[in-house]
């Protein structure tokens, strides 16, 4: 799956998604649970604002010195006996990984959940080589088995499916005979793909954070699949976005703590695994060969832009879990593997405005995302920046640009504005009856599709105030006059 997950238009996607009552209920429940869990975890830790501030500063420091830390990281990986490939593009990353697969004559690859491998469309390349690739994270496995259905959440990719849908998929595709009980289905997958881990030639993982000082790749997981994928196959390939690192283990503590609490509301997830190079020569399990693929794929352009703050992101999905727009349209509406506020910021940057131009507008600017982000990314401000870039490079509809131009022309001329307001009040007062206007087109229709118009209060305030001041003045004059008489 590449970053773009759909060829339908944004409007078509949200129309389909908003009909999906199960998905919407499920997302609403999930948001509430995850939001509450996150809030409780932050509260339990205490000093959350200090933690966030540290998280922000650590990530900021890394971005400002990224060339140094990547050099240190790569030197260290090689010193530890691993290999490092710097990939400027998705093609280069795929090409390198294909090379490793061919050299190893790999037949079977087990993967643990990784967004960046989705972003570079790695599975397609692997299958193109005639290899079998198994997504082993339960959520990703469900989606892969379901003909590569796109993910709807960064952390819980199959959030949009209910247990019965999942049972039916398993029944049809992998011969499952059991009930729709989540535990039974989970055990089935455990048994069903255990042999794949044992047979796999190569394990591919992402990287939550690399540690530059030691050449370590850390993985934050729950299911144990990432451990299997990095313990049993002879070769481990880790793919990381170039910004996903910290200087030392001291900073790793802070960012992992922020990630686990923000993503799942726990002090730590089931497994935090820190992998340093291939196994030592005297040990017998773990990979003999380790490859780290460091991917740019558009990130350096972001680093040099006004959007660089988004590179602090640690992919916890706290913003997704609080976003009221995401709540109603679900993840697949974004048409990108990255959904929610972070997806709306990141997708146009990595995939271009052409495919993702609507996403920055799918936001009421409520700023709830800014408040929960553990590394204090001003997501809502970045969405506004996107709108500005599109408006100023004329990517917005002509009618909208004309309307904005007209509005700004009037609004910058106080006398004209005053007249417009007075006239507007009269028109509104004369035409809005019981929440409706006699005509219902354009933005008016978009509004009245779900709500009525306000009942106007009569003349404009400014007319009233002027009259009042005049009356007051007259009274004062009269009073003064009376006094003199």
């Amino acid at each position, binding site marked *: 799956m590449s970053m773009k997950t759909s060829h339908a238009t944004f409007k078509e996607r949200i129309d389909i998604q908003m009909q999906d009552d199960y998905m919407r209920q*499920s997302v609403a429940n999930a948001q509430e649970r*995850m939001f509450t869990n996150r809030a409780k975890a932050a509260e339990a830790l*205490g*000093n959350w604002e200090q933690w966030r*501030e*540290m998280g922000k500063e650590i990530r900021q*420091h890394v971005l*400002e010195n990224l*060339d*140094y830390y*990547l*050099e240190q990281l*790569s030197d260290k990986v090689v010193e530890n006996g*691993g*290999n*490092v490939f*710097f990939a*400027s593009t998705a093609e280069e990353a795929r090409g*390198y990984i294909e090379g490793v697969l061919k050299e190893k004559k790999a037949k079977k690859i087990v993967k643990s959940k990784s967004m960046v491998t989705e972003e570079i469309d790695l599975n397609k390349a692997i299958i193109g080589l005639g290899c079998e690739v198994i997504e082993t994270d*339960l959520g990703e496995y*469900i989606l892969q088995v379901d003909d590569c259905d796109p993910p709807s959440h960064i952390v819980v990719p*199959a*959030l949009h499916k209910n247990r019965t849908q999942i049972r039916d998929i398993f029944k049809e595709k992998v011969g499952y005979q059991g009930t729709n009980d*989540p535990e039974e*289905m*989970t055990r089935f997958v*455990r048994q069903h*793909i255990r042999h794949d881990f044992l047979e796999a030639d190569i394990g591919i993982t992402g990287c939550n954070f690399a540690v530059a000082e*030691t*050449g*370590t790749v850390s993985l934050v997981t*729950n299911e*144990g699949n990432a*451990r*299997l994928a*990095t313990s049993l196959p002879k070769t481990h390939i880790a793919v990381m976005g*170039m910004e996903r690192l910290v200087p030392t*283990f*001291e900073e*790793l*503590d*802070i960012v992992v*703590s922020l990630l686990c609490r923000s993503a799942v509301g*726990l002090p*730590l997830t089931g*497994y*935090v*695994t*820190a*992998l*340093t190079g291939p196994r030592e020569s*005297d*040990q*017998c*399990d*773990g990979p003999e060969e380790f490859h780290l693929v460091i991917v*740019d794929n558009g990130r350096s*352009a972001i*680093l*040099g832009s006004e959007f660089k703050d988004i590179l602090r992101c640690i992919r916890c999905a706290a913003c997704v879990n609080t976003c009221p727009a995401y709540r109603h349209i679900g993840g697949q509406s974004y048409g990108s593997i990255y959904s929610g506020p972070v997806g709306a910021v990141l997708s146009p940057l990595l995939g271009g405005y052409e495919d993702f131009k609507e996403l920055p507008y799918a936001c009421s600017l409520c700023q709830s995302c800014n408040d929960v982000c553990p590394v204090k990314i001003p997501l809502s401000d970045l969405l506004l920046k996107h709108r500005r870039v599109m408006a100023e490079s004329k990517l917005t509809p002509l009618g909208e640009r004309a309307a904005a131009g007209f509005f700004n022309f009037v609004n910058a001329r106080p006398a004209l504005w005053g007249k417009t307001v007075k006239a507007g009040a009269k028109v509104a007062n004369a035409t809005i009856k019981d929440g409706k206007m006699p005509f219902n087109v354009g933005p008016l229709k978009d509004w009245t599709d779900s709500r009525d118009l306000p009942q106007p209060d009569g003349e404009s305030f400014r007319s009233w105030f002027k009259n009042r001041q005049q009356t007051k003045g007259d009274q004062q004059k009269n009073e003064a006059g009376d006094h003199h008489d």
Partner: protein
Amino acid sequence: MTNPARLQNRTAFLENIAKVLDRPRRTQAPVRPALKYRCHQEVMAGWSPDQLRDRLVDYTENALGAKAIVTTKAQLSRVLSEACLAYQQNTLSDDGKDVVLSADVRLQAGIDINQLTQAGLSLYVWDSSLGYDANIRACERAKVGVVFAEQALAESGTMVLYSQVEQGRVISLLPEASVFIVPKSAIVPRLTQATAVLTEKAKAGKRMPSCINFISGPSSTADIELIKVVGVHGPIFATYIILDDQ
């Protein structure tokens, strides 16, 4: 000197980063700013070993759905036997009744193998010299894997394992149940103290163990309807045995 074949495309990649950052390439270590706050150091600061142990037990039992047993050195073999036997009776399928024991000297010194065998356990002790296949096969058919933890984190109910010759990665991964043994003196408040040890190691120029695991309970997932299911690809059951060594 690094082998160029093992390090590809680096120069152009890093030059480009320097370019977008609008400055020359940074090749000297930047001043790493000290962490701004100490809130991570303050979590459970000043707690006694008993308080940390109680917190670990409480979190493990109530939040992780795992067992925590506090015992003494003298009782360890008995407690360990009982824990393993319980899992043998309590597992999903009947094939395989083995217990794989780490060869960690701290573990081996603390238990009486004969007592375990007499209790009815069939044991396999990890042996790297036998190679990958033999050890993997043993763990794949075993019901229980027993390991010795470097540290335990009270805040999150976490066992810290370093991969080592005597204790492979898969002992705590392939068998259905994991038993961790940790001395009370090794219980620390949180991840902060565990990463501090690793930072010290790094400063001393030592290579990190190739695999360090922070394990909190059995494996789990919430990928179906956000319902927590314990036991996915990793172990389904876990017991922490805390050795009262103080």
